[in-house]
C-alpha cells in the first residue's frame, strides 16, 4: 500500500470541488463496496470535509490533499455495532467502572451520551475490527434469574457514537438515537437452573400477575406523558416542567424509537401489541427466537437488532443451530435486521456474529448490509452512515479482505474523513512485550 501526501498549492486547484484543499482524501485504485450499489473494481472515493464527495471508477486527484493507493485492498463503509455499552462500562465486574442500569423503573431522561468516556480502552479495541460507530446503551439488559425486585423498564436514551472524538460531544453522531427499554417479562426459571438459585422458584401465576402490573404501570406512564404533552401545548399558567415526561415526548410522537429488548416469542408479541396500542415506533432488540412473530413484525414494519449469533439454543430440544439460523429466519420473513453484541468486551466481534449467520444461510450481502446500511437505517441515521454514497459521512475502512473474515486485517480507518489510529491497548501490549528480552 502506498500512501503519499501531496502538498498542493491552493491556487492551482481552481477547478477542484475542494472547499478546503487540506481537508480532502482520495482513495483510489481500490475495490469499493458501497453496499447500496454494486461494487466498483479499481474505484475511487473522494472525501472532502469529512463527507463523501464522489464515488466512481475514476475521480480526479487534482488538488486533493492526500491520495491513498488502495491497490489490492477493499474499501467498505465503517461497520456499525447496533447495541453495545462501549464508553459506559470499562471493566464489567467492577461496579465503579460501570455506568449502566440506573436506579428507578422509568428513566427516559437519562442520556448515555454524557457518560460516554472518550478515553475508554474499548473504543480503540473495537475500532480494530473495522467498527466506526456504535450504539451505546444505558442498560445492560441484564435480567438474571432470581433478581430481587424490579429492575428498570425504561433505562434511558441510547446514543449513536463515532468511535473517535476528543470529547463525547465530538463523538456523538445522534445523541438520542433510541429509547432503551427492557420489556417486562414473565421470568420463569428453567428447571435445570432452579437448583442453583436461592429460595424456591415463584409460581407462574404469581409471576404473571407481576407482569400484568408492570404492563399496567408502563401504560400509565405513557398516559402521563400524553397528558403532559397536552398540558405543555396548552401552556397554561400552572404548567410545570417534568424532565422524565419531557423526555417521553419524542417517543409518544413516534420520533424516537423504543429499543425494546424482548427475548421470547410471547414477549415480542406483547411488545408489538403495546407499541400498536401506544402508537409508538419500536425496534425489537436481542430476540432469541422468531416463533410466529415474522409476519407480525413485517406487517408492522418493525426492525430487529439481533443479539449474539454465538449463543446456546434456549432449550435442550432446540436444534443445535437455532441461534445460528435465527438471523436468516428474520431476514426470510422480510424483517429488516442488523447486529449488536449487547456488551462491551466483545463489541468488536460483531462482524463474526454476522459471519456465523452467513455460514447458516443468511446471504452474504445481507449480512454486510446488516452491519452497515441496515444499522444506520434502523437507528435513524440512514442518511448519514452505512454506505459509500456522496453526501454521507466518510466512515470508511480499508481492508485486505472481507471484514467478516477473522483473518482479514483492517489496514486503515476513516471516521468522518479523519484517518484514525488502529492502535489499541491490545496492540500496545503486543508491541511492548514482544520486545521483552
Amino acid at each position, binding site marked *: 500500500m502506498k500512501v503519499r501526501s501531496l502538498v498542493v498549492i491552493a491556487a492551482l486547484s481552481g477547478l477542484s470541488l475542494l472547499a478546503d484543499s487540506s481537508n480532502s482524501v482520495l482513495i483510489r485504485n481500490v475495490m469499493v463496496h458501497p453496499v447500496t450499489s454494486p461494487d466498483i473494481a479499481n474505484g475511487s472515493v473522494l472525501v472532502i470535509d469529512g463527507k463523501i464527495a464522489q464515488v466512481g471508477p475514476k475521480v480526479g486527484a487534482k488538488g486533493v490533499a492526500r491520495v491513498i493507493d488502495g491497490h489490492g485492498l477493499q474499501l467498505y463503509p465503517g461497520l456499525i455495532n447496533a447495541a453495545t455499552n462501549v464508553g459506559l462500562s470499562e471493566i464489567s465486574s467492577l461496579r465503579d467502572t460501570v455506568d449502566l442500569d440506573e436506579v428507578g423503573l422509568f428513566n427516559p431522561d437519562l442520556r448515555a451520551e454524557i457518560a460516554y468516556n472518550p478515553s475508554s480502552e474499548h473504543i480503540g479495541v473495537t475500532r480494530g475490527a473495522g467498527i466506526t460507530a456504535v450504539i451505546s446503551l444505558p442498560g445492560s439488559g441484564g435480567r438474571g434469574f432470581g433478581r430481587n425486585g424490579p429492575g428498570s423498564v425504561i433505562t434511558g436514551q441510547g446514543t449513536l457514537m463515532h468511535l473517535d472524538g476528543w470529547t463525547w460531544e465530538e463523538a456523538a453522531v445522534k445523541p438520542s438515537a433510541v429509547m432503551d427499554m427492557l420489556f417486562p417479562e414473565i421470568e*420463569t426459571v428453567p428447571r435445570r437452573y432452579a437448583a442453583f438459585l436461592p429460595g424456591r422458584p415463584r409460581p*407462574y401465576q404469581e409471576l404473571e400477575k407481576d407482569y400484568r402490573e408492570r404492563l399496567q404501570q408502563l401504560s400509565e406512564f405513557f398516559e402521563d406523558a400524553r397528558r403532559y404533552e397536552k398540558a405543555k401545548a396548552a401552556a397554561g399558567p400552572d404548567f410545570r416542567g417534568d424532565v422524565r415526561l419531557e423526555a417521553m415526548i419524542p417517543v409518544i410522537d413516534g420520533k424516537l424509537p423504543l429499543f425494546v429488548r424482548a427475548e421470547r416469542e410471547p414477549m415480542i408479541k406483547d411488545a408489538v401489541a403495546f407499541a400498536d396500542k401506544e402508537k409508538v415506533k419500536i425496534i425489537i432488540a436481542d430476540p432469541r427466537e422468531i416463533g410466529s412473530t415474522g409476519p407480525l413484525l413485517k406487517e408492522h414494519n418493525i426492525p430487529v437488532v439481533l443479539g449474539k449469533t454465538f449463543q446456546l439454543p434456549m432449550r*435442550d430440544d432446540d436444534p443445535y443451530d437455532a441461534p445460528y439460523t435465527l438471523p436468516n429466519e428474520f431476514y426470510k420473513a422480510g424483517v429488516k435486521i442488523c447486529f449488536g453484541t449487547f456488551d462491551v468486551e466483545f463489541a468488536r466481534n460483531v462482524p463474526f456474529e454476522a459471519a456465523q449467520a452467513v455460514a447458516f444461510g443468511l446471504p452474504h450481502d445481507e449480512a454486510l448490509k446488516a452491519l452497515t446500511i441496515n444499522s444506520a437505517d434502523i437507528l435513524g441515521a440512514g442518511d448519514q452512515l452505512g454506505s459509500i454514497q456522496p453526501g454521507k459521512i466518510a466512515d470508511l475502512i480499508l481492508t485486505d479482505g472481507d471484514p467478516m473474515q477473522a483473518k482479514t486485517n483492517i489496514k486503515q480507518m476513516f471516521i468522518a474523513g479523519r484517518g484514525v489510529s488502529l492502535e489499541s491497548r491490545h496492540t500496545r501490549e503486543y508491541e511492548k512485550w514482544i520486545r521483552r528480552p
Partner: protein
Amino acid sequence: MKFRLLIVAAVLLPFGRIEAAAPSAIAIKDAHVVTVSGPDMPKATILLRDGLIQDVGPGIAIPADAWAIEGAGLTVYPGFINGLSTWGITARESQPSRESATDQRTPAPRIHGPEDRPQTYSFERAADLLTPDDGRLEAARSAGFTTSATFPNRGIFEGLGAMVDLAGERGRDMVIAQPIGQQIAFRMGSGGMGRSFPSSLMGNIAYVRQLFLDLDQYRAAKMIYDAHTEGNRRPEYDHELEGLAESPRILLPAEEAQQIDRILRFGRELKTPFVVYGLHEAYRRVEELKQANVPVLISLKWPEKPKDGDPHEGPDYRELQMREQAPAVPGMLAKAGVKFGFYSDGVDSAADLHKALKKAIDAGLSRADALRALTLDVAGIYGLSDRLGSIQKGKIANLVVTKGDIFGNKDAVEYVFIDGKQFQPAKEGGR
C-alpha cells in the same frame, strides 16, 4: 378418611380400656387368602395369636378363645410395606437439611472438609424417633400399608432405619427390626458454591467415599490394636463411624439414567451391600440393573406436569418421556427379574397412594408382581422375609383385609391387622 382402633371388645368392657380389650386370638374364617409366598387359598381360615399368624389354611379349627370374624367375601393379603419413608417420625426441630438463601440468615459454623463430618447423622436411629401419633399412619393404613422401612431424614448420612409397624401404643412397640440400613442422600446447595462442604454432587460423592475409607481404617485399626496393643496407639472412638459400621446396608439415590450408572459403579466401589432408590428413568437401564443384581426401591411420586409452570415453556422431550414411562418401570423390572419394592417419597394420602400404585399397574405391572413388590420382595430387600411379607404360619400378623381386589378401588380396604391388632378405616363421613 379416618382410621380408628376397632373396639372389638366394646360390648364387654367399659370405655377407657380399649387397648386391653384385644382378644387373645382372632380367626378370620372362610376368606380368600392371598399368601404371596404360595398359591392363593380361595377359602381358608387365618388364626392370629400373640401378634403372629398362628396358622393358615382351609379347615383350621377355631380355638374356643378366638374371636371369629366372618371372612366370606373378603380377601386377605399380607400388609403392604413401604420400602422407604419417614412414616412414624414427625417433623422435628432440626437444622435445615438443604441450604438456601433463607438459611444463610442463621449461619452455622462453616464446614471445612470431610474431617468435620458434615451432615453425618449415621448414628441417629429411626427406632428412637418413632411416634404412633404421626398423622400419616392412619392414611397409610387406609391404603393397605401396615409396615414401613422408616429412616431419619437429615443430612447426607441420614441415620439408621428401622422396619416398623404403622401402629402401636408407644414408639418402641412399633419397631420390628433395626437397624435395617443407612440412607444416604446427596445434598447440594447453590450448585457447589454453598457455604459448607460438600455442596456439589462430586463433593457429596467424595465425602461418602472418604467416610467409607475411614470406616475401613477404623475397623482395621481396632482389629490390629486388639491383636497388637504394644507399640500401637489405641484407636479413637468414633461416634459417626460406629453408626456406619452398624449399617447392614446402605441406600443410595439414583433417579435418572446416568445417575443409575453412576450409583451402580459407586455402590460396588464401596464394597458394602446397597439398595438404590428413585429409579424413575430406569426404563433406560433395565438390562444394567438386571446385570448388577442390586435391589431397588421405586418412588411412587411419579413425575408429572407441575401445576405452576410456565405454559410457554414446555418440558423437554426427555422429561416428557420420563412422565410417560416412569410408571412402566416397575413392570419392566418385574419382567427382567430385578428385585424391587416401592416407596412413598412424600405421597402420603390414601387416595394418592392408591392412585400411584394403580398407575404402575395400568402401565404394565401385573397385580401379582405389584403385590410381591409391596410385600415379600421389599421384606426380602431388608432381609426380613422370614418374618414379614407373606401369609405364612409363624410370621408377624400384619394383614390387609379387603372387599375385592386391593388394587380395584381406593375404598377396597376393610380393615388391617398390625401385630395381630385390628384397625378399621372410618368410612366417608365418619370420624
